[in-house]
């Protein structure tokens, strides 16, 4: 009995030091598909829609189509977010395409966006996080029809 009391007294000391998640945020994960295949690399941004309080913006890198956000960096349940995507690739160049430091310090790296512009700032993708169910989202993106 005495040990039980002692342990109970000790518990809050041990637990109390963990980082608090003040806003009750929930973790989020999911997949980004582009033209039927997982998006190799890029990033995703969740941004509170106009007028939300508190305003939240969070995001992560996308690797092989997958992304995940921990609870601390996650979404607030019952808030609606607009979702933006970005994926930039290097354009292979014939001359000095490397990022190697040179004496004159010029960097000749050239890049372009893989995704159409409508998935950037003007993105129409919307999600709402929920408190209970696992927040797993799948986004199907398509390239512009020429």
């Amino acid at each position, binding site marked *: 009995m005495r040990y039980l009391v002692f342990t109970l007294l000790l518990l809050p000391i041990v637990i109390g030091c963990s980082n608090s*998640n003040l806003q009750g945020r929930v973790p989020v994960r999911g997949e980004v598909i582009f033209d039927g295949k997982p998006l190799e690399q890029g990033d995703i941004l969740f941004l509170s829609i106009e007028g939300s309080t*508190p*305003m939240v913006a*969070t995001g992560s890198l996308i690797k092989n189509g997958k992304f995940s956000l921990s609870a601390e960096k996650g979404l607030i349940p019952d808030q609606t977010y607009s979702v933006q995507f970005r994926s930039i690739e*290097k354009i292979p160049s014939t001359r000095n395409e*490397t*990022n190697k*430091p040179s004496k004159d310090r010029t960097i000749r*790296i050239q890049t372009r966006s893989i995704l159409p512009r409508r998935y950037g700032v003007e993105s129409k993708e919307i999600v709402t996080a929920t408190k209970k169910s696992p927040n797993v989202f799948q986004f199907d993106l398509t390239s512009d029809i020429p």
Partner: protein
Amino acid sequence: MKIRVFREFTLVELLVVIAIIGVLIALLLPAIQAAREAARRMQCTNNQKQIVLAMHNYHDTQQFFPWGARDDWYGTWAMQVLPFIEKNQIAVEYKWDEVYWDGTNLQLLKDLVIPTYTCPSDGNNNKSISGFPEDRGHNYVVCMGREGVYLLYLDNDHPENCLIDGVVYGRESQYRAMFTGSCYPPGFSPHSLAYPLTTRFEDIIDGTSNTIAISETIQGVSATASGYGDCRGGIWWGDFCHFTTNQVPNTTYPDTSYIEADSALQDRHPLTLVNTSTSDGTGRYTRFSARSWHVGGVNAGLADGSVRFVQDQINLAIWRAVGSTNGSEIESLH
């Protein structure tokens, strides 16, 4: 006559004592580590206060605050503040019409480490962030506003060209930052290089207590053989001497740079490549969020000289509001 009788310890008693001592040490050790980190954070607060006070002293002599950056290589706020943190011997010899990485300036900045510009929580120990000796990593960066992109090859005659993802940046933006950078038009000559706009106390109409001057970044991991590496923390280099309040501190949404990231920091402080071929007509730019190795937030120095710890989970509306000098936003950090 009394005889004292000493009873020997039993093995169990001894083990119990050792176990108790073990538990106490296990409890105490993390607490000591946390106290050490708290001390480092306090030191960081002090550094930022010194820098903002130095900027105030600069304002006293020049009648304006230091400008953010001139192009990418022609000086940043960090050189201008030097005389006011007792590094005048470097400042008087510095050549403003030359690049920082060559000639006299190279000799001055080579392996130069300024403790006041360094956050003690950063374990990178001021190693070079680019592989060049004049690019030793430091931690403090100036606020370039709530949109916060630093444009390279900006066409100063046609600022309406400065669109990124459909948003107008730079001088035409309705929000002014406390610090700005200037760039040269394509086909420039260094002598035509314009000095950036400067801010005076009276320009901060949101109030100096509601406007951010400086905050932190992390020192990029040293260059690898294959390239520059992650150049964050290169405060002598215009493209890397600033941050924006566009995203919350320590966000897992990546920073943007035209230099490829080393993978070492990608989990906590990601960085991606900029799109150099936007149809908007602008090319390279850099965009960085405030970042630190402190737990749960960053220190930020306000324009009035106070320094506050800003949590990662701050309401973004407030964080963006304090990033501009003239937004007339009602939000404040208090």
